[in-house]
């Protein structure tokens, strides 16, 4: 909207500092929703993103769960992919070179069945050119071993983070599950064990059944809910995580447009990840990024840092009127 682009002049500064990691902007592609970048090459120049978090990588290739793996639900979808991936070796040989050649900022999401595998993955990724950070997946609901089993217990979560911290000097993000009573406790445990950042949320454990076949709609029975349906849950989790820890928090869960992303930043998340929205709109990450920039111009803010964490928690009545329709900006 031309009339809403605000002041001309220098573009607003979108760069953010996440502990040891500096990103050119706060918009990342979430793990498992953007493949290894190449899948969306026709739509997104992956180097424009703050970072791409690649599909979860395990030490050895994993076939994933049997089909059906997906079901659509109101404003969301449940998946039980089961961390199908090519394995570390093949990732390094066939997937990473493309991302390196593009100049993308690459965050490798790592997953292990047992504690030792997390450490070994981290050790083997340590010092690999083109890897900017690791995201520790202790929150996948779709695997029998590892995953959420680690992420729902502060003691286990700390053990995994410590094992990874010991094995690498790369910046570490720990990805948390919302399927706990106090996400702040898990976040604290991860920080004490040495993580540099927290990202949340992974999918919400969920289920769908068919009254005609009288069967679960997923072969795995239980899966993970994502999409706009989980955004309010994600906002609450990020809010609690931000209050619990001082390290940077990356917000994700149901982000489909710039306004969604800005909501997370307002709570104090220092970056966001766009996930399920990529499936519907292959350009979702860039749409969020461009909408964010327009928002800063409209609000006459020089940098995104000036907006992050600016939530006014004092609830007043009558509620403050919005000066513009965020839809115009976002």
């Amino acid at each position, binding site marked *: 909207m031309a009339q809403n682009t605000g002041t001309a002049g220098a573009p607003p500064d979108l760069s953010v500092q996440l502990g040891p990691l500096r990103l050119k902007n706060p918009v990342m592609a979430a793990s498992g929703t953007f493949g290894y970048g190449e899948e*969306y090459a026709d*739509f997104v120049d992956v180097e424009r993103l703050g970072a791409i978090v690649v599909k979860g990588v395990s030490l050895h290739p994993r076939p994933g769960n049997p089909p059906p*793996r997906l079901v659509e639900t109101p404003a969301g*979808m449940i998946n039980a*992919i089961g961390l199908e991936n090519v394995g570390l070796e093949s990732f390094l040989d066939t997937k990473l070179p493309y991302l390196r050649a593009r100049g993308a900022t690459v965050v490798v999401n790592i997953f292990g069945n047992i504690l030792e595998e997390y450490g070994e993955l981290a050790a083997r990724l340590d010092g690999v050119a083109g890897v900017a950070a690791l995201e520790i997946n202790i929150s996948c609901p779709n695997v029998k071993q590892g995953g959420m089993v680690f992420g729902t217990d502060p003691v286990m979560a700390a053990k995994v983070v410590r094992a990874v911290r010991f094995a690498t000097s790369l910046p570490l993000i720990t990805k948390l599950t919302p399927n706990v009573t106090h996400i702040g406790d898990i976040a604290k445990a991860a920080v004490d064990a040495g993580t540099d950042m927290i990202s949340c949320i992974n999918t919400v454990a969920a289920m769908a059944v068919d009254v*005609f076949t009288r069967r679960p709609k997923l072969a795995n029975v239980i899966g993970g809910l994502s999409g706009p349906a989980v955004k309010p849950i994600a906002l609450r989790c990020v809010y609690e995580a931000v209050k619990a820890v001082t390290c940077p928090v990356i917000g994700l869960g149901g982000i489909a447009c710039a306004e969604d992303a800005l909501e997370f930043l307002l709570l104090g998340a220092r970056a966001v990840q766009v996930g399920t929205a990529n*499936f519907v709109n*292959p350009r979702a990450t860039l749409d969020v990024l461009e909408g964010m920039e327009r928002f800063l111009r409209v609000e006459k803010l020089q940098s995104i840092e000036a907006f992050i964490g600016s939530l006014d928690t004092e609830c007043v009545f009558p509620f403050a009127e919005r000066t513009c329709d965020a839809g115009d900006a976002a």
Partner: protein
Amino acid sequence: MTSMPKFTEDARVIDQRAVAFETHLLRLRSPRIAGCARAGQFAMLQVRDGPDPLLRRPFSFHRIHPDDETIEILYRVVGRGTWLLSHCAPGTRLNLLGPLGNGFDPPPEASGPAVLIAGGIGIAPLFELIVRLGRAFEGGPKGSLRLFYGARTAAELLPPGFFEGLGATIHWSTDDGSFGYEGRVTELFQDTMEQEGLRPGAVYSCGPLAMQVHVARWALACGAPAQLSLESLMACGVGACLGCALPAPGADDPASDHYVHVCKDGPIFTAGSIQWHKIQVRRAHPPIFLYS
């Protein structure tokens, strides 16, 4: 895997009409996709904006008209998404992502007759192929292009007028005998093959999973080169979500767990590339009143 460019494009509904029981033919102006799509490929269509329904739906191309920049989609109303789609009036904007998937390979030169097997709405992707093969086989001996086309009942079949002038010999069947041969289309197909002693140069099929399993087993047993168009629930259509997995023989150990993905490795598969015994054939779709 093809490296053909993919597009997102705001298509316009030009025309939509009911052509058989709960079956609609949708014509869309979609210049970029119509310009490069091939028979057997598909597009992900966003039924409407917003989170309800959230995901795009995959549809194969029923016809591709690069000259007037349109495509046609033939679909059955099977759920809320297709029910909403069936109410889109001319002029409606629908976002398409495509063309996706591998598409059909043409039959090898100077081989036997080309045989197509369609079950119900499975006629959708085969139609563009029939038109193209009809041109390729023009002037050839009668019966060198055959379509075996079956449905549960006559009301579910496309009217015979659709197939006039295509140069294909059509064998009709219905499960209830209301039109053509009474019984499964696969029975009609196998009986005809045996009676006439035909050895097809290429077999193309699309239809319900139970039918596809049957065709695949037949093709494997007699060594016929078959190309099967398969479907799946899908979220992304481009190989990112890994949701549309089908069991396949492992590269090293055929018995090991391995999956192919309908969107990226297909939707056209050879009979040997799927582990059919691992696929459960599920019951028919729920009655439509649930969605309206």
